[in-house]
């Protein structure tokens, strides 16, 4: 079996970027300034250069500098090697394709909330890549610029996005609406995934890991980690709270199952929030830690046995552990899973009605959606691209085969991914023959089975009041309640204060 080998240079780069997040933005700015200069000089005049301000998650785009030995040779003859940052390569591609100069000012953000706060403070960008709920919030607030009709023209060969996006992702984006407008009008999918549980199969069984109740299970007290953000934690709490209902046969076989599941997982009634607060308190007491990043390392070093994890990070952790012959697995709770995606959206304030700029922004999205670039990003980031490849272009599928395809005749499974590539999971052209353990390891996390996606729900954005209530709930869970202070401590404090006063008073008396 071929093993995915991630680029070491990239890893180092990402490590340093992780340590000094600010350096990422600063570095990009300096690089932009240094490399952008000659291009500007060649252009006819400065005003002809379109400036595209792009803001993306940290470490969320291939920055190139691969070693020659990392070259990916696919069976369909495509050879992929990341030499320069994708946004720099876009500048050249745009010049060759459209004969115009564009300069990308690339910067990074840390969380959706940070990005939103930056926008509120008056930072302007043309193209940003937030998560689905932030896209919904920005859409609802009218901050987004819809994609032009030309962007959806399937006849244009340079429209890599509309020709290459996975039917599954496109349908999800089209079916969901805010104020009567579908998301696909404003957002182009970039990366997507689900949430689940990364676990150590030597310590617990797949059944135990495949439920949100795991985080409430006293058998693994202080050996599991939760996510340190309110949305993921609330989702887990809802899953655990409604566990019985969600796994009930009558509920699952309901005609309107998907719709009802979505409603249950977006339940923000005051009673549910209150119940979630109680449950989350207990879950946190039962957990090892709340983490954003450290859970992967703690899984690999064996400090914990299970870790609430996003699918892409789970793939990364499984890859890393595998290097030490330590085999972690991924489980998706039976109740439901959170389907999430990040997408490119244009900001109305940034574009400002500039048709040329909008065209460049759309071209940027198309460039990233070209199948070889999608593969480069997947290789570099480890998450799953929304791109399946246009008709007749099997690069993405061949990459999957390159990663997971197994040669041996024994111990293999036929893993269908047709739902993603052609929209039909029965499609025999899109079946991967993979090693049997991939059914609950990397392949399963990167391209969840169709059966798993049936029980996936998108968690929508909270409106202002709900947001306030849920965040208040989260703060309550996290804060130390003054009434929890034991009487002994109060007495001790009182004693110390008295002692301090006593010392001061006696000192004064001695002086006089």
């Amino acid at each position, binding site marked *: 079996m071929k093993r995915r080998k991630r680029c070491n240079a990239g890893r180092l780069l990402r490590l340093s970027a992780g340590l000094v997040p600010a350096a990422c933005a600063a570095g990009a700015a300096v690089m932009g300034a240094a490399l952008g200069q000659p291009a500007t000089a060649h252009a006819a005049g400065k005003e002809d250069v379109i400036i595209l301000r792009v803001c993306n998650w940290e470490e969320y785009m291939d920055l190139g500098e691969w070693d020659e030995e990392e070259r990916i040779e696919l069976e369909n003859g495509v050879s992929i090697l990341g030499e320069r940052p994708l946004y720099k390569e876009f500048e050249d591609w745009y010049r060759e394709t459209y004969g115009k100069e564009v300069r990308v000012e690339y910067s990074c953000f840390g969380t959706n909330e940070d990005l939103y706060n930056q926008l509120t403070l008056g930072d302007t960008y043309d193209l940003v890549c937030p998560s689905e709920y932030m896209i919904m919030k920005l859409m609802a607030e009218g901050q987004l610029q819809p994609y032009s009709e030309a962007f959806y023209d399937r006849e244009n060969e340079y429209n890599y996005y509309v020709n290459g996006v996975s039917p599954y992702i496109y349908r999800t984006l089209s079916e969901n609406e805010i104020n009567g407008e579908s998301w696909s009008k404003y957002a182009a999918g970039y990366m997507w995934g689900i949430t689940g549980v990364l676990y150590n199969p030597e310590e617990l069984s797949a059944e135990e890991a495949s439920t949100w109740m795991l985080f409430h299970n006293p058998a693994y007290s202080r050996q599991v980690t939760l996510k340190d953000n309110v949305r993921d934690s609330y989702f887990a709490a809802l899953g655990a709270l409604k566990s019985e209902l969600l796994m009930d046969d009558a509920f699952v076989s309901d005609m309107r199952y998907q719709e009802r599941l979505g409603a249950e997982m977006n339940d923000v009634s005051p009673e549910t929030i209150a119940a979630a607060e109680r449950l989350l308190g207990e879950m946190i007491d039962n957990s090892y830690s709340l983490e954003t990043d450290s859970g992967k390392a703690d899984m690999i070093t064996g400090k914990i046995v299970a870790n609430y994890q996003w699918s892409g990070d789970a793939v990364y952790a499984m890859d890393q552990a595998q290097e030490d012959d330590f085999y972690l697995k991924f489980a998706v709770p039976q109740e439901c899973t959170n389907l999430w995606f990040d997408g490119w959206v244009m900001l109305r304030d940034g574009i400002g009605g500039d048709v040329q700029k909008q065209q460049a922004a759309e071209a940027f999205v198309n460039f990233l959606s070209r199948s070889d670039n999608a593969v480069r990003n997947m290789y570099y980031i480890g998450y799953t691209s929304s791109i399946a490849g246009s008709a007749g272009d099997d690069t993405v599928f061949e990459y999957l085969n390159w990663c997971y395809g197994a040669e041996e005749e024994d111990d293999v499974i036929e893993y269908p991914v047709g739902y993603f590539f052609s929209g039909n999971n029965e499609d025999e052209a899109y079946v991967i023959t993979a090693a049997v353990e991939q059914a609950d390891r990397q392949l399963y996390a990167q391209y969840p089975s169709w059966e798993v996606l049936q029980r996936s729900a998108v968690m929508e954005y909270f409106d202002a009041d709900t947001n306030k209530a849920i965040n208040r709930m989260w*703060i309550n869970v996290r804060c130390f309640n003054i009434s929890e202070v034991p009487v002994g401590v109060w007495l001790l404090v009182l004693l110390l204060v008295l002692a301090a006063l006593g010392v001061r008073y006696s000192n004064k008396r001695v002086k006089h």
Partner: protein
Amino acid sequence: MNKWYFSRRQLCIPYGLFLVCFVAAPLIVIIYYAFTNGQGRFSIENLSDFFTSPNTIGTLAYSFGVAVVTTCVSLLLAYPIAYILARSKMKHKTAVLLVFIMPMWINFTLRITALKEILTMLEGNLSYYPFLNTVIGMTYDFLPFMILPIYTTLLKLDNSLLEAACDLGADTLRTFVKVTLPLSVPGIISGIVMVFLPSMTNYVVLDMLYNSTYIMGSLIGAYFAAYDWHNGSMIALILLLIILIFTLFTNRYADEENGREVHLSGKENM
């Protein structure tokens, strides 16, 4: 030829500009947000919110607890070290001092990551002792800030005062309690200020050592992540006031002690 020189007032301009841009302006913004509500109208709701919620008050108490314990532990560890270093007649005093100061040169997140592994080895599962771990982490981080000022004060200590105490029949313990300790109070005070204040807000240490309880710093961050700048600013302002009161109090105390020192040395000259 004209000679160019700057007046004192002109030399202040760069710092003055810095002060206006990065101290005064943000402070005004914080005050504005702290006393307005979501609709931009004046409101003291944020203030009453803070003092009526058992959770925010609890967070204040918890931060205070962490800071007080960290400061006490640091003081108890630092004083003997500083004393020994300052009073010893070692040849390579500075080299030994360096050993204690050197950790400051290493990035503190790296140090805490290393500490995490050591504590895991000792405790097994870190999550059972969040408060203890936090105090250890903070002490590890801030100890040099306690050692240095105490060491400097003790180094400046006039030996003749100790000799005088000895001549007047005081034994070593009495000399320490009556002369050395009171004279080192300014060092202790600045050490306390330098340890107490950051340990009230340094939530990175808590995060890294898996203490999921919020302290003041993380609470402010949580409000900002929820786009609630008003409550966040109010808590930042309250924290600012607490620090201000604390600093004023310690300054007054330090002044008192300084005065006594001057007084003493004046006597000596007579």
